[in-house]
């Protein structure tokens, strides 16, 4: 590992790692408690399901011939290398802490690049007002959502790490490393594939050579090819590992068909629990179309600020993907501080913060009322997921508004601080 960090960040990382290891070891029941929480562990990321898959894999039963394990095949040999987590949990703890630190390191680089405030085509009038990578990484590492995710050990932390590294590498101009990293993220969770267009634009902008400009289409083709090749390699190695292609339907099919309706923080599970059977496939199509429709729209409208597109898309995924968890929220929230310069333009920051906090505290309470106390029904938790989603979507659209207004004020500097409206 090469931390390109100052002494300050080293200290930050040490403190963050110490905090995590302290939580892991001081409260031995905490990791398993958080692993069982539906807000953290979803059917496609749960650590308990990973253990089950690992157990079956180590006993020569195909984990994909069952309904428990829906995670990528390459995680199996990775975790087989670690000692049994029930006997020597410390190795797992160290691994998850390291992954968090790697993500924080990537985030540090992203924030330090200044891409949030000034890209190739666009430079914000407020770009001086920004937080250093140190602050951004600290906000990520000490975000309660991130810490809870790390302790709960879902495999979504690997996706988070891969996405952040893809962005960081695209910023530093390593297109192929970036695309490889993105392929890993897509391989683990599928939805990061939708980040490909803004990632290509980001890479294009960062490697733009004014003297000999390459065409965007050419780079896009190269990037798509790179992602395609690396994904096929990953799939082929998975095939070699499991001996059949059934992992495809078990890992990605479940996200497309939503056969597992375990409650989570998102909108899909209750909708498809209550859906009439004849309309199920139609609405699955609509929901996926809706989720993927944001990518081209944002990429085109915010062509000048690809990092903003990626941030907004991550926010949208955290709300609208089939199995969202607070790990996705923490990834989105970790990139938001890169746009410190537009914070004054946010209109509903108080409302958003209140609603998100409201959802954070009432979600577990209402879930308890439904599942354990029996004094509430499923609508209690459903209502909270609605509030949570509305709060996050308010934050996403408010951020989009702020970024666009910031862009607009470049054309109309005299409108700074004035009231505006949209026609």
């Amino acid at each position, binding site marked *: 590992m090469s931390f390109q960090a100052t002494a300050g960040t080293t200290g930050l990382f040490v403190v963050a790692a110490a905090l995590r290891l302290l939580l892991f070891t001081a409260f031995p029941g905490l990791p398993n408690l958080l692993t069982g929480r539906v807000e953290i562990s979803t059917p496609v990321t749960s650590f308990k399901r990973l253990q089950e898959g690992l157990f079956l894999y180590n006993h020569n039963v195909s984990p994909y011939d069952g309904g428990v394990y829906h995670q990528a095949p390459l995680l199996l040999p990775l975790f087989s290398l670690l000692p049994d987590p029930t006997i020597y949990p410390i190795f797992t703890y160290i691994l998850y802490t390291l992954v968090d630190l790697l993500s924080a390191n990537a985030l540090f680089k992203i924030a330090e690049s200044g891409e949030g405030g000034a890209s190739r085509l666009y430079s914000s009038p407020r770009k001086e007002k920004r937080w250093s990578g140190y602050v951004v990484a600290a906000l990520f590492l000490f975000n309660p959502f991130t810490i809870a995710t790390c302790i709960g050990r879902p495999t979504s932390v690997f996706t988070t790490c891969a996405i952040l590294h893809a962005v960081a590498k695209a910023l530093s101009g390593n297109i192929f490393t970036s695309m490889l990293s993105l392929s890993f993220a897509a391989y683990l969770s599928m939805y990061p594939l939708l980040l490909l267009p803004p990632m290509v634009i980001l890479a294009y902008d960062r490697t733009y050579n004014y003297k000999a400009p390459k065409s965007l289409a050419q780079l896009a083709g190269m990037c798509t090819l790179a992602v395609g090749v690396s994904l096929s390699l990953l799939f082929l190695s998975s095939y070699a590992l499991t001996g059949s292609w059934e992992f495809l339907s078990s890992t990605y099919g479940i996200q497309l068909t939503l056969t597992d309706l375990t409650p989570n923080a998102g909108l899909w599970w209750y909708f498809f629990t209550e859906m009439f059977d004849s309309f199920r496939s139609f609405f699955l199509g609509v929901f996926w179309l809706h989720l993927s429709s944001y990518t081209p729209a944002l990429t085109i409208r915010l062509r000048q600020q690809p990092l903003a597109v990626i941030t907004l898309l991550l926010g949208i995924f955290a709300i609208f993907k089939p199995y969202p968890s607070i790990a996705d929220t923490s990834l989105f929230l970790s990139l938001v501080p890169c746009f410190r310069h537009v914070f004054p333009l946010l209109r509903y920051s108080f409302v958003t913060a209140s609603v998100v906090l409201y959802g954070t505290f009432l979600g577990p309470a209402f879930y308890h009322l439904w599942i354990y106390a029996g004094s509430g029904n499923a609508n209690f938790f459903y209502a909270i997921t609605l509030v949570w989603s509305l709060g996050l979507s308010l934050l996403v659209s408010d951020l989009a508004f702020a970024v666009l207004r910031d862009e607009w004020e470049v054309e109309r500097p005299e409108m700074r601080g004035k009231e505006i*409206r949209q026609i």
Partner: protein
Amino acid sequence: MQSFSFSSLIPLLTFLVSFAVASAAPAADYHEQLNLKPLPQNSPSGQLQFPFEAHNFRFFPRSLGQILQHAGTRELHLRFSLGRWDAETWGARPWDGTKEGGTGVELWAWLEAESDDEADHKWLTLTNALSGLFCASLNFIDSTRTTRPVMSFRPEGDHPNTTMANMHLLHGVLPREVVCTENLTPFLKLLPCKGKAGVSSLLDGHKLFDASWQSMAIDVKPVCPIGEECVLQIEQTIDMVLDIERSKRPRDNPIPRPPPSHELKCNTTKPYHADDTCFPTDSLNAQEWNLNQIFGKPMLGNCPLTDPQTPPVCIQAPHTRDVFTSMGVEELKEPGNENQRCYLLPSNDEEFHLSLPFMPRDGDRPKTDADEFVQPATPLLYAERSLTGHGQEHGGVQAILTNPSPDAEVEFVYMESLPWFMRIYLHTLKARISHRTGSDAGQTLHDDDDVIKEIYYRPFLDRQRGTQLEIRMKIPPGSTVFMAYDFEKTILRYTEYPPDANRGFDVAAAVITILPSNSTTTTGGKAARMSNLRTTSMLLNLPTPDFSMPYNVIIFTSTCIALAFGGLYNILVRRFVGRDEGARGQLGQAAEEAAGGRAEGQGQSAREARG
């Protein structure tokens, strides 16, 4: 020996019939027997057990035969069961548990098929046909309730090796099925005397399904006696444990009422026993009963089609027990067997009566329990299974398996077939052992990996198949094994819940097959058979959605998505202008003018007022 096949079923039977008539051979084609066995009455009321047996070659029911032939079934076992066998009180199970099923309906069969798909297809045919024949919901045994046991069941019939290769064992359970009179009627129709005469005339749905425990079994298998041709054999068995007190309750006044105080039998040894305080005794020692009372109707003579050599009624009680029968009945006492006597009925249609009088415990010639009952044999294994945990998210299953034998270890296969919505985590499977004897007697539980010898696990697939878990275990003498695993409860689509969703879902009984150990193979000169036992079924509570509001949920979620999408769409698509710039819509203009006018008017009136 000619291999027996279903296509030759009917001609073969016809041949047998003619042969039997021509030579008047004594070989039994059909016999039936009622076995009565008074059980010890440690529980508040006495119990009896009545296995019926009907071996039938000549009179093989054509309706069933055609179904089996059509579905390519080589061997069939069908069970309808209710209640729980109380092994602590009643001891070992009748027929070593081989003729009982888990609560509800259980069906397993060996089908002849080239491939798994063909076997599945034939299984579907079989279950649907049997469903019609027995008025049971057997057609609901779909792929999610069907398993292919690997270690648990063995074919009982004689199958040539050539057909064994193509035989597929399929097993299905309907734990929720309520066994009732409509299942008894077709069961009786299969008998040659159709319940009109003989032992089967005693059967009455009111009494049978009021039993503490009952199991109806149908076993069809090919048998090949040495030197003869193979025939198809059907055995129909009914085992039941009747509560005498309840059975004797008069039909016109069936509601149980507390007995008046002078009829209460009190336990006088209690310190607080007084005239106005009574602790009811838990053992009503001596019981008197007769056949008419407990079955609610008399036995109508002998079935004329049975083998005359087989006594139709037997009672397993010590010879010291007084038993009175109707006139003309011949009592047979086997010399070596002190605990059994049988009765041969005269071949007329007279009703058969049997009565066991009250045996006084005091007086001139006091009797003891040993005079009245045969102490039941200790079972090879006690098994119970229960759900652990709370809440509707996670749970656990714990099975407690006790080997009561002081010196012999017991080896068995524990099979669970769980519904798919019970997501079990096999990595949490733990077996802990506690020894009652030996150096570490009474010590706390400790993990023991040696108990579990082998595991066969086929994980569930959502909405396609259930979990199949077979565990071969060996328990040392005098030890108890606690086996536990975790599972997760699934939330289902709202259309997948039954109408009373909050009642819970029935989980089928675990089937335990005790493998014959080497030491017991030679006992009795017979090859030791496998014996079975089954745990009770479980009731699993799943989280439920709100069934009343699918429309509301669709509307609310769509609104939420529309708000998010619409908000973002607005921001992305519309242009920014200053608050006071740009063209206004007519409505906006009018509204502003109206607002401005009102303000002016107000100002005017204010000025006027001041002026």
